[in-house]
């Protein structure tokens, strides 16, 4: 049975499901209800099928490779390769897409009659199919096609809410950045083509030895920038916090949960699979990029009061953590330490899976909140735990998982990452040790700050009192939205408890890469549900889970039966000194984060905008309202993107002077071109 799924026919069925979903949803454009059910049900079916395909490819003894169709372009071959790495990413994409599609059935209902559901469903199906193609393509040109389809489809999804000018700007920024990234990728593939004479991954891999070191390094830099743009490495991340809030929430969940991971996938594919062996500095660069992204990402998240932007910055942080694992893998490989490299790679793959589950859960939860309250500003939310208890619980689960609290899955992948970094400190010499020290330090820092950030996020959104009228009238989301979120929360817990088994599978996935082939069989990363890091340290997730349960129970009983035995507890309203409690008395999320931001003000450059409106314009004695806005100045815009844009604009204005409007000038150009061409060519 599994052979059928992981074959060309199974894959064609997969693509057909999405194609039918897309086409049908476009046909039903006139009827929102039909379009919604059609597109999302087919997306569900397709994702489910995708999971089967992925599992089929995971259990297949040999990588599944096949070619579909033909094209008029000799270099473009629609060839697929489903090795274990691709299968793993296919699985992650399908898994998240499945739950997002379930969620979407109810979520998109609030767009009825406002924007076309047909086009949304069309691009949604195309988008998922594009991601699946990206993960399975085995030809550079075909990969680029899939990559661009994925990017363009997601662009249209980002601007779906098109009446907001801000969303259009976000979409514009997103497509510009992603296209710039694609330009770098194209350059990288063209360089690979120049050296190996083919766009096929297999040919590039086998011809890898012929690539000169200079070209190899150039390809590394180009593809790091190209794929890093998609993954959201700082400072290429600018599109991410803009695009995620603009998109509908199930799209944000998919984009943040899995789309940015395609960048990671391609980095693994290109660096580890196609270009190995490689020099030491590649891994060091990845480690530094990871450390910077992780630390700065979480700092920016702290300063954010838009809940979806906050989550978007956390994606940057988590991409940084994944890169730490990947970077240590690359470093160990070039130091000839394959066992440790495997550990690093498993850590990054595991975190990829985990981040996909809890980040999509968080985005879906945020979507449920926004759907009810119509605001993304956390300062206007609050008190939702009473109105939306299930959502609050789900969001809390996600928050705990992303803050790396045991027994949720985030803890175990970060633990693995830590282990690989510690091994780096222990096993490498003085030349590289400082990188690992910095990376481990920044990861530790990141973990603490992430916890603070989610205390803030959860507290501001769900605790205290509603701070706006809309937040007072929120209700629990409807069935399908909850049905999409509950399994994700369950998976976050499950992947934590059974993380030993998951790590075992991931070790198989990573171990099949060609770079690990020449070495004697690596150590067992996990046995009987226990993760160990090369025999140096280990952790047993089920035991952790049990201990936690016991500890919780013990604390609860101790307090109830020992300390509070004689006392009677009554519940009453909070003492408010006779005045009414208002949301203005609560601590704001900005205020909560302010002390931490001030510690890092050297990096973050916080800005404060005070404005006082007075009743009496001239004397200004009686203020009517005061407003203080705290923000973070966008140093990437001011120091990197704005100057580049200004430069382009200045060149453009120079070039426009050429079109002076005077015909004499134009004929002079012809004369000059003629004389110049004659002079230089003869």
């Amino acid at each position, binding site marked *: 049975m599994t052979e059928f799924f992981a074959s060309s026919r199974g894959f064609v069925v997969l693509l057909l499901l999405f194609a039918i979903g897309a086409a049908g949803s476009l046909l039903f454009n006139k009827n929102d209800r039909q379009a919604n059910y059609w597109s999302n049900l087919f997306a569900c079916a397709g994702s489910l099928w995708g999971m089967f395909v992925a599992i089929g490819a995971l259990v297949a003894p040999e990588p599944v490779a096949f070619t579909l169709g033909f094209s008029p372009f000799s270099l473009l071959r629609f060839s697929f390769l489903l090795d274990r790495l691709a299968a793993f990413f296919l699985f992650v994409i399908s898994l998240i897409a499945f739950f997002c599609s379930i969620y979407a059935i109810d979520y998109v209902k609030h767009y009825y009659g406002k924007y076309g559901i047909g086009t949304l469903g069309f691009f949604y199906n195309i988008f998922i199919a594009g991601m699946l193609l990206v993960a399975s393509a085995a030809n550079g040109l075909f990969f680029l096609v899939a990559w661009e389809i994925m990017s363009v489809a997601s662009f249209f999804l980002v601007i779906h809410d098109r009446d907001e000018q801000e969303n259009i700007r976000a979409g514009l920024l997103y497509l510009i950045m992603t296209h710039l990234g694609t330009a770098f990728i194209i350059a990288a593939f063209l360089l690979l083509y120049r050296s190996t004479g083919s766009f096929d991954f297999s040919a590039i891999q086998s011809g890898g030895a012929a690539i000169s070191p200079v070209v190899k390094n150039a390809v590394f830099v180009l593809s790091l920038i190209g794929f890093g743009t998609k993954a959201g490495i700082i400072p290429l991340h600018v599109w991410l916090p803009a695009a995620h809030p603009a998109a509908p929430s199930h799209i944000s969940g998919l984009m943040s949960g899995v789309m940015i991971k395609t960048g990671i996938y391609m980095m693994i594919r290109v660096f580890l699979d196609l270009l190995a062996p490689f020099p030491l500095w590649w891994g060091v660069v990845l480690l530094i990029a990871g450390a910077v992204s992780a630390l700065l990402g979480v700092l920016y998240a702290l300063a954010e009061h838009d809940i979806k932007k906050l989550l978007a910055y956390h994606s940057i942080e988590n991409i940084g953590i994944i890169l730490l694992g990947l970077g240590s893998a690359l470093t160990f490989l070039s130091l000839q330490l394959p066992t440790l490299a495997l550990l690093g790679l498993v850590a990054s793959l595991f975190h990829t899976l985990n981040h996909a589950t809890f980040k999509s859960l968080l985005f879906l939860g945020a979507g449920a909140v926004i759907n009810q309250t119509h605001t993304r500003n956390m300062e206007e939310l609050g008190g939702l735990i009473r109105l939306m208890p299930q959502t609050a619980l789900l969001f809390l689960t996600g928050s705990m998982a992303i803050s790396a609290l045991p027994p949720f899955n985030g803890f175990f992948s970060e633990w693995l990452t830590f282990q690989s970094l510690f091994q780096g400190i222990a096993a490498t010499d003085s030349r590289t040790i400082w990188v690992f020290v910095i990376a481990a330090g920044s990861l530790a820092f990141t973990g603490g700050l992430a916890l603070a950030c989610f205390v803030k996020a959860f507290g501001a959104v769900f605790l205290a009192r509603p701070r706006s009228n809309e937040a007072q009238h929120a209700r629990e989301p409807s069935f399908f939205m909850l049905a999409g979120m509950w399994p994700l929360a369950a998976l976050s817990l499950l992947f934590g408890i059974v993380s030993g088994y998951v790590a075992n599978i991931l070790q198989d996935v990573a171990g099949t890469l060609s770079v690990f082939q020449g070495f004697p069989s690596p150590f067992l990363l996990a046995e009987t549900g226990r993760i160990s890091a090369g025999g140096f340290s280990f952790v047993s997730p089920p035991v952790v889970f049990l201990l936690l349960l016991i500890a919780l129970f013990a604390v609860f009983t101790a307090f109830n039966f020992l300390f509070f035995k004689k006392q009677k507890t009554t519940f009453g309203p909070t003492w408010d000194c006779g005045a009414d409690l208002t949301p203005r008395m609560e601590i704001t999320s900005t205020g909560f984060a302010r002390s931490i931001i001030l510690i890092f003000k050297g990096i973050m450059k916080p800005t404060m905008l005070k404005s006082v409106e007075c009743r009496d314009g001239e004397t200004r004695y009686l203020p009517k309202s005061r407003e203080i806005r705290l923000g973070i100045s966008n140093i990437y815009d001011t120091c990197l993107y704005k100057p580049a844009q200004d430069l382009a604009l200045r060149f453009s204005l120079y070039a426009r002077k050429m079109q002076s409007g005077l015909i*004499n*000038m134009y004929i002079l150009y012809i004369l000059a071109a003629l004389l110049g061409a004659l002079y230089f060519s003869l």
Partner: protein
Amino acid sequence: MNMNLQFLAMTIFLTTIFFHIIRRNSYTASAYAVQSLAVVLLLFRSFLATGSLSMLLTVILVLAIKVFLALHLFSNFVKKYKPGVSATAYLNLPLTLIVVAALSAFAHSRVFAPLAAIVPENAALLSLGIAGMLISLLLMVNRKGILSQIIGVLSLENSIVVFGLFAGLEQSAILQIGIMFNILVWLIITSIFSSMIYRHFGALETAEMTSLKE
């Protein structure tokens, strides 16, 4: 080398320079007529040499279009739009002459040497033809008036014809007639356009027409 030939070629070349020097449009029109007449005479020579009737037809057509029709159109033009017709240039006269000299030198330089070598006995005349082309282009660059631009194009065409004649590259009569037909239509269109431009802009200067600047 035939003295007549040299004289005609020099006439054509000198009229090209003359376009740059004179500041009155009526003279420019007449100078073009003189230039075209020289071309006609050259063509007539080649008719005498070959004796083909179709060549004669070409000669007559050229005479009719380039000399009579053009003269007629241009003098009408000058009369009608006197206040609007400009003959001013961007470069002053000495500077213009220096550039003309430089272009002539370039036409005689080693860059164009292979062209002059097509018919070695006519090398000087061929170089003159090339110089005429470049100087005609310069006329269109330098002059502000629309009439000068029209004459620049026509003078460029004359220079090419002269070059073709001296290089032994004249085409068969049917092609010549086709080209003449093109020039006829071109002349008519430009004169229609001139009146339209005058109606819309109130002047016949290129500097007036600079609103398309992107």
